[in-house]
């Protein structure tokens, strides 16, 4: 699995942070040979009038379509998951495409790394690691 991929993943939940959760499309921010750090995405629209927190990136219908997604979505760099690349977490890992829906273009990948980098630098003390 490569960095910048949008991939089908059982993203963990607040209630059960150590177990595979609901099927979502996650964004691979960092990948190693055995693990990946993914950002949460959801097609639930962001509430109108609510300010966007740092680390949240909205994708409109056109941007979503360019990434092979049928609906606008929200990418949350403030909700991340560090997961092993195994079938319980990635249901399609054994298939040729490994569940990868699309790969973000280089410019978008850089934008998201910069966003994550700023977030981590400014909020280091507010990062909550759950589940190790």
């Amino acid at each position, binding site marked *: 699995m490569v960095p910048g991929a949008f991939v089908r993943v059982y993203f963990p939940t*607040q209630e059960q942070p150590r177990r595979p959760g609901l099927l979502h499309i996650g964004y691979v*921010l960092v990948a*190693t040979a055995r693990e990946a750090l993914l950002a949460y995405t959801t097609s639930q629209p962001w509430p109108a009038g609510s300010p966007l927190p740092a680390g949240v990136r909205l994708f409109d219908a056109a941007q979503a379509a360019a990434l092979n997604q049928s609906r606008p979505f929200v990418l949350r760099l403030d909700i991340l*998951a560090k997961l092993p690349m195994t079938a319980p977490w990635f249901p399609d890992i054994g298939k040729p495409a490994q569940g990868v829906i699309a790969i973000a273009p280089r410019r978008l990948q850089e934008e998201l790394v910069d966003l994550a980098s700023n977030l981590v630098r400014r909020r280091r003390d*507010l*990062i909550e690691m759950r*589940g190790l």
Partner: protein
Amino acid sequence: MAFPARRKPLLAFAFTWHQNRLITQPRKKTPQKVAITLRLEAANARRLQAIAQDENRTLTNYVETVLLRDLLARDEADRVITVFAAPETSSRIEPDDVIRGEGESDAAYERRQAVAVELWSIPDNG
């Protein structure tokens, strides 16, 4: 004279529709507001009044807006970043472990490595 047979159902329909509308579209409640007294130095009050006028607001509305902005900023500052970590994952990473994106520049790759090392180094909060 006999009452036209169709009027009653129409009235009944109108009443039912009105009832449903009341049930399904409750009137929005405006949040209750409380009055507070604010004492400012005259010079500051004049400045605030001038800013409010520039923005076509009343002084009260301007002060309320500024205070709400401050509340939002505080909410934002308190926001936590959550990293879920599966039990089988490692708690340490070397920069060279990070896979480079296709066509990724050296600078972008270094930033990605730095984010990874930083995030991997954070201890579990339980």
